[in-house]
Structures are given as structure tokens and as C-alpha cells.
């Protein structure tokens, strides 16, 4: 790439060419290509969303003839969404989702925050052992413990309850690990000062460390709610009645009721189930992304 050294006095034409190059036409072309690639990818990503929304307002007979015609001939949304909400207790499924997610998150935080503080800043004999257990726990997927937990819950006659849906997730070793990493960076001097001021360890945790960890707590909450709102495996295992069904389960129940007939209502149902998290994401987009980055890159 050794360019011939330009003459001492470039000609006017050459100068003009160089000026033109300062505008970097290669960059403009590059930017255009980049946009084309990104838009093509975006179409792939958005396709199901768009089709879901379009179909959810189509008339049933039009669904079968629409092909890839994007614009619905007539607006049938009210009927479809109404049908979805009447036919299946979708709102109840979502209520169940809220109860389950909230219950799981609260217990996870109550368990993980003190444990993380103990692991990060307190000296006690079994600390190294506890930390090893946490690290090991990080590698174990939740499906591994499903069998024994199912048997245990069955023997206690607790199947098909909110408790059964929530209990395997009360412990989040990931939360313990995340908060421990966060607390580890907290200056020891402030904790010493607080002890000298007469704070108990519990007060130090609640009044000093937890407020400082709010970004991490928010990030973890995003992570926890997203994964448990959308989780299918365990609710499918322990839930038998629609009464306690979480949104994904509800979607399956609804789909089975509607097999092959009313796609408009089915898509409306999917839109309803998907809406809460998507809307939350669109509003709190930054927090979501930051949450994923913080919880993702350990």
C-alpha cells in the first residue's frame, strides 16, 4: 500500500479530486450498504410482529386469501380482540403472570441481597464454600431439578398452585453472584465508618448497600421478570388447570381451543400476551439494554 508520493505542487484538478475525497464518498456508499443490510435484517426481525398485528385485525375469511397482501381489506380488530378476550381468560393468565413474577422477584431479592453482602464483605467460616456452591449453581439449568421438585411438590399435594410455580426460582444464584460482584466494589471504608457510627450489619445492608445497588437491582429485575413471564417448561410441568396458568401456558391453551379456525383471534391473543413486556421495553428501552449488558457480561 505504498502510495507514490504526490508531486510537490498538485495540479488544480488533482486538488479538486482530493477535496472530493475528503467528503469520503466511500463512507457515503458504505453507509448506504450498511443501512440496506440493517433494513433487510430488520424486516426479518419485524416480520412476525407485523404479520401478527395485521392478521389480528383481518376478517376470518380474508385470512385465508390474503397471501402476502399487507393491507387488511376491512377492520375486524374489535371482533378478533373481543373474541380472544371472551373465549379464553387471557387477562387472568396475565394476572397470574404478574403474581408469579412479582412473588419470584421479591423472594429472590430478599434471599440474594443479604447473601451477597455476606459473600462480599463479611468474614465467616463457610464463606468460601458458599461461594463455590453459588458458582456451581450458575451452571445448573433449571430443568435439571424439575423431576425431584415435581415429586416433592406432588407428595406435599402442592401441585397446581402459585407456590409450586414459583418455588424453584426463589433461589437465584445468579442474583447472589451479580450483587456480590457489585458489593465487592463498594469501598470498605464506608462500611467501617458506618460500623463506627453504630449501624448494625442489617442497617448497613438496607440503608447503605441496597440503595447503592439500585442499578444492579433494576437490571436483575428486568432479567428476572422477562425470563419468568416467558418461561414455559416448569409451569407446563406443575400446572394442570387454567386457573393458575401463566401467559405462555395460557397461549398454548388458547391455541389448542382455536386450532385451525380463527387465526385473527389467535393473533389477537398472541398480541395481547406479548404486549405488556413489549410496551414496557419500548418505554424503558435503555434500562432493558443496560440490564442485559450488566447481567450478560459478567
Amino acid at each position, binding site marked *: *500500500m*505504498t*502510495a507514490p508520493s*504526490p508531486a*510537490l505542487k*498538485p495540479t488544480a484538478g488533482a486538488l479538486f479530486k*482530493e477535496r472530493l*475525497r*475528503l467528503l469520503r464518498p466511500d463512507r457515503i456508499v458504505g453507509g448506504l450498504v450498511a443501512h440496506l443490510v440493517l433494513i433487510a435484517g430488520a424486516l426479518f426481525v419485524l416480520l412476525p410482529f407485523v404479520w401478527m398485528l395485521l392478521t389480528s385485525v383481518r376478517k376470518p375469511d380474508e385470512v385465508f386469501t390474503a397471501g402476502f397482501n399487507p393491507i387488511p381489506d376491512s377492520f375486524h380488530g374489535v371482533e378478533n380482540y373481543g373474541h380472544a378476550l371472551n373465549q379464553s381468560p387471557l387477562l387472568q393468565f396475565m394476572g397470574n403472570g404478574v403474581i408469579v413474577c412479582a412473588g419470584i422477584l421479591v423472594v429472590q431479592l430478599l434471599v440474594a441481597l443479604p447473601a451477597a453482602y455476606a459473600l462480599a464483605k463479611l468474614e465467616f467460616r463457610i464463606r468460601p464454600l458458599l461461594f463455590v456452591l453459588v458458582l456451581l449453581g450458575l451452571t445448573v439449568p433449571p430443568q435439571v431439578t424439575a423431576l425431584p421438585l415435581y415429586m416433592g411438590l406432588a407428595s406435599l399435594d402442592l401441585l397446581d398452585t402459585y407456590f409450586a410455580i414459583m418455588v424453584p426460582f426463589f433461589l437465584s444464584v445468579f442474583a447472589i453472584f451479580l450483587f456480590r460482584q457489585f458489593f465487592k466494589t463498594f469501598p470498605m471504608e464506608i462500611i467501617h465508618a458506618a460500623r463506627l457510627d453504630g449501624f448494625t450489619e442489617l442497617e448497613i445492608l438496607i440503608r447503605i448497600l441496597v440503595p447503592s445497588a439500585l442499578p444492579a437491582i433494576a437490571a436483575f429485575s428486568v432479567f428476572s421478570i422477562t425470563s419468568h413471564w416467558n418461561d414455559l417448561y416448569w409451569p407446563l410441568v406443575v400446572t394442570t388447570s387454567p386457573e393458575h396458568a401463566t401467559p405462555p401456558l395460557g397461549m398454548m391453551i388458547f391455541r389448542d381451543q382455536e386450532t385451525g379456525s380463527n387465526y385473527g383471534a389467535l393473533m389477537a391473543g398472541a398480541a395481547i400476551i406479548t404486549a405488556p413486556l413489549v410496551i414496557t421495553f419500548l418505554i424503558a428501552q435503555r434500562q432493558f439494554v443496560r440490564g442485559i449488558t450488566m447481567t450478560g457480561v459478567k
Partner: protein
Amino acid sequence: MAALEIDTVSKSFGGSAVLKAVSLDVRDGEFLTLVGSSGCGKSTILRVIAGLEPQDAGAVRIGGRPVDHLRPKQRNVAMVFQSYALYPHMSVKDNIAMPLIMQRLRLAERLPLVGRLSPRRAKVMAEIDGEVGAVARQLHIEQLLARKPAQLSGGQRQRVALGRAMVRRPDVFLMDEPLSNLDAKLRVHMRTELTDLHRRLGVTFVYVTHDQVEAMTMSDRVALMDEGRIVQLGTPADLYHDPLDLRVARFIGSPGVNVLPGTVTGAGVEVGGAQLPLPVAAAEGAAVQVGLRPETLSLDPPAGRPVLKIRLSATENLGAEVFLHGRADGAGDSPIIIRAPLDAFDRARAAGRLDGTVTVAVDPARAFVFDADGRRVGRRPVEAAVVRMPVPAE
């Protein structure tokens, strides 16, 4: 080796002008320092010279040849970054070899595996190895060639960054605060090493720093910048003894220059009751600011020279010299520092002249007079060149 001309270069970022028609001629082989506080535009000039940032207007010439249309690699400049910008995944050897590999191997030859098919490649790589080794020997880092940057100390990384710059034999060396990440002791050491390197290479150096001590101790000439303009360009002694602007007087020198309010009179300038017989290019009665370097205030008896009365508040004994802090009576109560040699301090104390107040003699020839806008209006000192440069305090 080449001279460097910066011709009325302007640059703005999003509406805020960072460089305002800056012109600067750097002589061939000169060590020129751009100094100023952060945000004054000094690093931007460096990036414009390197071609990392296109200027909005103006031209840059290296060795008389316009380089504005050239990419950074074609300008034959080398740059040492504040963060060193070493490639963390490459060994020291590969870091230093990088510019040569890029220059001498074609794109296809640089490809992994495929590149080895080129018969030329092995020969070129051997040449490069030899040159890298020679540079490493000059910098005393031969034993570090196999290491990764993370395994090096700050000083060693600095040398690797220098090596990467030296190996391509650039026309101009650009250095962007290269010492600011080193600890104080190493920084003092590296100052002498860099000036030594400059002398050996004989190449044009453009050095950017916010540290006036570095500017004063290393450079042939210094350009002091403020708000996107060069305020004064001159030798370190010029800037110290003959500042053309109050900003220069204040920036250069430690402890800083004393600035007292004064008034223009028929006979010169009146400051704190002292009459300084200085011809001043300003109307009688105009308010001026008088700059007095701490070492120009003498504790010895005035012997007919104008005097200032100072109420003392603190004394700092540094061993060889003493700093006396106080406020000037009648000169707006301005804070003032006197820098006295220990023997003068001892004489004054023995003579009982340090009883809470002290009378100091002012040397009118070494006083700077600035107008309300900070522009120099007083006569320039005649003997500036013969006054010995005081060693700046760390």
C-alpha cells in the same frame, strides 16, 4: 525530517469552534510544545496534523508539501498517545512491527495462511524483525519483545509506544501528553530521556502537554494556547520573562506570577503605593494589572528602588529557598507570594525586617504591565535573555 507548517487552520465540533485560524511554523528538527489547559485545542491540532481529524479550513504542510489530501499513514508522521494505544493482543514485537508490516506487505500478504504463499513475505518479515530489534535495543526493551502490553510497567509501555513511533522513521513525531500516565518520579526521568531521544533522532517533535514544567524543560519553543488560539509562541525563556499576555504570565511559572491592580500615571505605573518608572502605552489614569514574578521581589533593603508593603500570613521553608505568603497593602489587598533565597531570608530575619509585615523591593525592569484585557502594555525587559532561568518547582 521536515518542517511543518500549519496555515490558518480552523476546526469546529458541532458548532463550537475548537481551533480558530491557527497558524504555526515548526522548524525542521525542532522540539515544539503546545501547552495549555484542557479544551484549549492543543490535542485537536495534533490530530489535524496526523490526519485523524479533517480541518474545516486552512492547510497543513509537511516539508513544504501539502498533506491535507493524504491519509494518516501517507503523511509519514508518528504519534504517541496519552494512553499509549498499544494493541493489547499483540506482543511488544508485533506492536512495534505493525507500521512496517502495513507499509511493506500488500493486503493479500497480510492475510493469515494465504499471505504465506507470497515468496516475498519471508524476506520482508526478516527485514522488519531486524529493524524492530534495532529500535528495541535503542530503547533498552530487547528483553521485553515477547511480552504482551499487560505484562509491562507504565514506563515500559511508554517505551514500546515510542518504539512503534520510531521504527517507521517518521518526518514528524507527534506526542499527545505522553507522560501524564506515569508517576511523578518516572515522569521527571522520561523528560530527560525524551529530550535525549529528540537530540539523537534530530526529527521534528510536536509535543502536547498541559504541564508547563514539561513545556519549559523540554522544548526549543513553546506555543501557549487558549480557547483555540495560540496566545504566544516563543522560547521557554521568552514565555517566562517576556509574556505578551496575562494568560501566559499566569500559566507559566510555579509558584504563579503575582498580579496586582495598578494605575497608569504620568511617570509610569503606580501599584500599591510604589511608582514603577515604566513607559506604558496606555492613557493616564487607566487601570492596569501588574505582574511580578515571586523571585523578582527582593527582601534586601530597597536601595532606592520602589517598594511594596506586605502583610505576611505564612512562611514555607523549602530548604534552599523560602516562600513567603501575604497580602499587598494598598494594592487591593491582593494575595502575593515572595520567593526568596535562604540567605536573603536569613539576612532579613536577622535584621528584624520580618515582623508580620515586610517591605520588598520591586525591580521595575522585570515587572509586566497588562491592560484590562490582559494584553501586555508595558516596556519589555531589556535583559530578559541574560536572566538565569529559575528551575521550576515540582
